[in-house]
Every structure is written in structure tokens, then in C-alpha cells.
């Protein structure tokens, strides 16, 4: 059996392998080495290796290419973009995706638009790694999953891994990809263990993973929600309800082929996203499925998302806020029970 490692170590390994393979890869972020300017940071030893230790050990290996930045997100994320437009492959770490608001311009007006504005000449292979997700009593400004705002921007690619294997392969692909990629890491997955080969591999961007196959309902689930969907699907299977679970892995580009062909088989759709339904991925998937494969739908698709409120701090409220297997199960049952009332025109 293959080696099992944690999600965060898979990310660390992907960065290490890419930095070994390609001298133009570097990492810049807050405390990504850690201890800069203190007595303890020497070239043999980093201190923090990132706020949750994800880049631990990389600084001693690549002391010039693991760069601590001042708390100036616009400057250092912008520098990652600028360096990448000049032949490097920067990995910029935006600690929490919640902080996008202080540096979004450099991503959505600069990195994303260079190629188009410049008539197809620019190549900006920057990768932004950033944390998402609730569940840690981290409250409204450290628990968000604002990826649908990034997905709304043509020119960016958005990647959301759901397990250690995918994290390694998708991050490698993102770093190697010639377009700006934003890589969303769910903090609750960091300690998730899974089989991860030691060697280098990539998982192509834009290809969904069919996690489970079943003929009754298609569940599209993102990031951490994939686990929850699996739990719900197991429970439902006991009652003879068989679900297909699709993990899109990238939401931009979205693998519509995989989703459409599954819905064409099942006729039923549940989308699970821990972010908001309003102008979010959930309504996006339901909207596009409905426009493009309406004829296949046997029942009203359902969205299982966070309610439209900021993330609350108190543990009981936060638990109520998040989607969970029970809510997914209920949504699936709703699609099964519903009779299609659509009348033929």
C-alpha cells in the first residue's frame, strides 16, 4: 500500500518537487519561512514555515526562493504576479482567502487580464495558494470561502482540492500551468490523511473526479463537502438510493461534460457548497445544468449551502451554519420524492 500523508504535507511536497524541478519556482508570503529578521532564522532552519506550518522545511532547502514578505498583500501578491509575467513561476501565499479584499486588484485586474488586454502575448504562470473554510471557531473574517468571486473572473483558474492525493497533483499542475491559478486549501483538510505517491505527478486542471457512481442522483460537492457527500451517500445507499458524487476539483474551468453527462443519467441534482448560494457555485451549477440539459431533469435540483449570513463564532451556530451529511441526505431525498410537475408546452 502506498504511503499515507497529510493534506498539508502533500502540498508541501508538491511545492518542494516543483522547486527542485524548476529554478523559476519560488514561494512568497507571510512567515512562509518564518522568523525573518530574528536571530533564529538561519539558512539551515526556518521557524514557522507558514502560519500553519504548510511550508515548513522548504526554506532550508531553497533559502533564496522561500521569501517572507511584509504584511503588504497588494505588494507581495502583486510581486508574485509581476515576477511571473517576467519568466518566473511564483507561488504567492495569501494566508487566508478572507484577506483577498486588500489585494484583489492585482489578481482580477492584473494577472487575470494581462493576456487578453495585451492581445494574447502575456503569459503569467502565477499560483496563489490560500486557505478557505469554516469549522474552526475562527468567525466571520477567517472562515470564508470566497472562490465564486474568483470564478467570476475570466482569466483566472480556480482549484479546490478535496483530499491529499488531489492536493499534490493539482498543485503541481497549477504551478506548471501557464495561466494564473488560485488554489484554495480548506484548513479543516490539512490534517486529513490519504495515500499519496512519493513521485511527481499532476492531475490535469479542468477534469472532475467521479468519486462514486450511482444512478439515482448526481451530487456535485466541493472541497471538504466531498467527504460529507460521501457520508450522506453511504447512508442513502442503505435505503437503495444510489448517488453519483462529482468533485469538480476546479470550478474554473468547470468540467461541464462530467456534470451534464451524469445528470443526463440520473435526472436529479444536488449541489453542496459551504459558501453562499447567492451568485455562488451552487446556483451556477444549477443554472447551467438547467439551461443546458433541462430535458434530463426529473426533479427540482437542490442547493445545500451556508445560509446567507456571515460565519458565526459560537460553536453551535457555526455547526448549524455549515452543510453536513444530514442536510445533504435531506436534499437528496427531496429530489427523489418530488414529482416533476413540468408540463409539456
Amino acid at each position, binding site marked *: 500500500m502506498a504511503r499515507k500523508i497529510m493534506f498539508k504535507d502533500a502540498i508541501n511536497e508538491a511545492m518542494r518537487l516543483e522547486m527542485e524541478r524548476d529554478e523559476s519556482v519560488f514561494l512568497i508570503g*507571510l*512567515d512562509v519561512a*518564518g*522568523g*525573518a*529578521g*530574528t*536571530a*533564529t*532564522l538561519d539558512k539551515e532552519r526556518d*521557524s*514557522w514555515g507558514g*502560519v500553519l506550518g504548510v511550508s515548513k522545511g522548504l526554506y532550508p532547502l531553497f533559502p533564496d526562493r522561500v521569501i*517572507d*514578505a*511584509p*504584511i*503588504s*498583500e*497588494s*505588494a507581495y501578491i502583486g510581486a508574485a504576479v509581476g515576477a511571473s509575467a517576467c519568466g518566473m513561476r511564483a507561488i504567492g501565499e495569501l494566508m487566508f482567502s*478572507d*484577506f483577498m*479584499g*486588500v489585494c484583489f486588484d492585482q489578481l482580477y485586474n492584473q494577472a487575470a487580464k494581462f493576456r487578453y488586454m495585451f492581445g494574447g502575448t502575456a503569459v503569467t504562470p502565477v499560483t496563489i495558494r490560500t486557505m478557505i473554510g469554516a469549522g*474552526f*471557531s*475562527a*468567525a*466571520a*473574517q*477567517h472562515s470564508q470561502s470566497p472562490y465564486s468571486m474568483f470564478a467570476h473572473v475570466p482569466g483566472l483558474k480556480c482549484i479546490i482540492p478535496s483530499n491529499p492525493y488531489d492536493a499534490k497533483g493539482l498543485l503541481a499542475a497549477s504551478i506548471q500551468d501557464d495561466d494564473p491559478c488560485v488554489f484554495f486549501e480548506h484548513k479543516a483538510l490539512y490534517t486529513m490523511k490519504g495515500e499519496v505517491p512519493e513521485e511527481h505527478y499532476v492531475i490535469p486542471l479542468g477534469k472532475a473526479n467521479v468519486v462514486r457512481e450511482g444512478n439515482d442522483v448526481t451530487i456535485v460537492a466541493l472541497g471538504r463537502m466531498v467527504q460529507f457527500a460521501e457520508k450522506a451517500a453511504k447512508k442513502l445507499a442503505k435505503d437503495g438510493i444510489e448517488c453519483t458524487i462529482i468533485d469538480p476539483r476546479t470550478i474554473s474551468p468547470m468540467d461541464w461534460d462530467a456534470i451534464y453527462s451524469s445528470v443526463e443519467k440520473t435526472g436529479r441534482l444536488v449541489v453542496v457548497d459551504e459558501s453562499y448560494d447567492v451568485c455562488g457555485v451552487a446556483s451556477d451549477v444549477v443554472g447551467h445544468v438547467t439551461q443546458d440539459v433541462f430535458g434530463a431533469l426529473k426533479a427540482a435540483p437542490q442547493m445545500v449551502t451556508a*445560509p*446567507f*449570513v*456571515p460565519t*458565526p*463564532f*459560537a*460553536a*453551535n*451556530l457555526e455547526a*448549524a*451554519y455549515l452543510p453536513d451529511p444530514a442536510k445533504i441526505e435531506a436534499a437528496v431525498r427531496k429530489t427523489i420524492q418530488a414529482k416533476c410537475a413540468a408540463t409539456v408546452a
Partner: protein
Amino acid sequence: MKTQLSKEDLLKAYRKMREIREFEDRLHKEFATGTVPGFVHLYSGEEAVATGVCEHLNDLDRIASTHRGHGHCIAKGVDIMGMMAEIYGKKTGTCGGKGGSMHIADLDKGMLGANGIVGAGPPLIAGAALASKLRKDGSVGVVFFGDGASNQGTNFESMNMAVTLDLPMIFVLENNGYAESTSPNYSAKVGTGNIADRARGFGMPAVTVDGNDFFAVYEAAGEAIERARKGGGPTYIECKTMRYFGHFEGDAQTYRPKNEVKEARVNDCPLNRFVAAVTSEGLVDAAELEAIDKDVLALVEKSVQEAKAAPQPDLADLMTGVYVSY
């Protein structure tokens, strides 16, 4: 300066500093037991800054705070019982349990919130100061921020705008030597080591003071606040201080010299220094200070007990307080 403070003032200031220390030290202990949720950043060691500044302020004056906000809250008069309950995520908390440590606010007390976003405070307080200016109510706005935050664009922009619009605003830099694990020697290489130098470049008076000396902070803040109240515009005050715990609770602090905190606690503790100063000059009796210590200990003890015993928020609260209408 010391002698300009009445005995009552001195005792009040001491009580605030002791409340902060006790509150934070207790949270440190409680966190270790695993009962405190979320990210918790403690202010122990920096008490003289919040207190030295806020002793000049009233409820109409506004402050904005940071992720390390408990000290500012206490200094600005936020209720300790409510704060502790909030940190425990309880219905009886200052924010009904919905904010937690990083979002404690009390608008009636002029406390515009701790903040999870580094550098978010300066624009907000520029707004508070602009409101004061438009209303001509003589109030001031004070923003607290760290050495790390001093590099955030919002901070620089607000410095410039405060000068441009002549705002009654005070920038209080808490230079505690670290932003998470990063030193300002690295991230703010101003040459002299005094980050306040930058403020002068923006055309604003700026000073650097010993942030562990309550009286030094009190004096610098008093001057700045008086100038601001009289329409004299913004001031930047850099306070050199130290945090006694990790960046957040759970931080192994591998980036720190082993004895840094131990030595500071002995030689440079703002509370000890205050006690020494006021007792040596005979301004206050040691016994009076000890009585305060006892009081505060009991208060914090009570706050923890009540917080632990308090109910969680109602589940219905999840969907309320988003807009004025729901």
C-alpha cells in the same frame, strides 16, 4: 507628568492595567485546558500602551483595535464579564457569541471593534475622526496597530489622508518586535529602527516612546490628543513594547530568544514599573494597589465561571443581525 495625575487617576490606570494582565494571563491558562475556542491573541506585556492612551479618552472618542484586542477593549471600558463570555462564545457575550475574541466591539463605549484583518482599523478611524470633524464635537479617533500592520497599505493611505483632511486622529503603533514570527528589523527597515520616521515623511508629528512606561505613553498621548481636539490634526506615536505570550495561543515561539520574555517580565514589566514609580514617590500606598490586585483577581475569576456556565446562543440567532431588517 506623574504628578499631574490625581491619586484617583493613578489607581484607575493601575486597575485597568491589572485587569488586562489578569484577564490575559487567565485566558492563557484556560486555553491550555482546551476550553477556549478559536484564535486567541493575548495582550499581556503591552498594558501600558492601551491604558496610557485610553485614560485620556471618553465614550465619544472612538478607537479601533486589532486581532490582539482585549487590552484595548478593557482600557476603553468594555465590560469584562461580557468580554469573557464573548470569548467563550456565549449568548451573554458582548456580541451575543457571534464575534468571539477577534470581533469584540462596544459602540456605546466608542470601541469600533477588534479586527481580524491586519490594517483594517486606520481607514475606519479616519472615518470616525472625519465624523468628529464634521460634527465639531471635539472627539478624537485613535487607531491601535502593530509593527506588522504598519506595513499595510491601508495604514499608509490613512496616514496621508489624515494629514490631507487634518483629521483629529492618533496613530498608535504597538511595536512589540514581532508580526507573527517576523521582526520589524526585517519588514520595516527604516534605517533608524524607529518606524515613526515614516510618519514624519507624511507631514505629521511623530514620536517614539518607551511603551512599557505608562507615564511616557500617557504624556505623548495626552499631547497628541489635546492637539487633535483643538484642530491640530493627526499624530503618530510609536510605543516600543513586548508581548509575553505567543502570536496566538498555541504558538511554540521558536523564533524567539529563550529568555526574552522571562527577562522582560522581571526587568521591564509595565505593571511593576508603574508600581515602583508610584510607590517610590509615595503617591500611592502599596497596600492600595494590592487591594486592587485582589479585586481584579476575583472579578476575572467570576467572569470565567460565569462565561463557562452561560448558555450558548439560541440557534435562531444564526439568521438574525445581518441586516437591520433581519
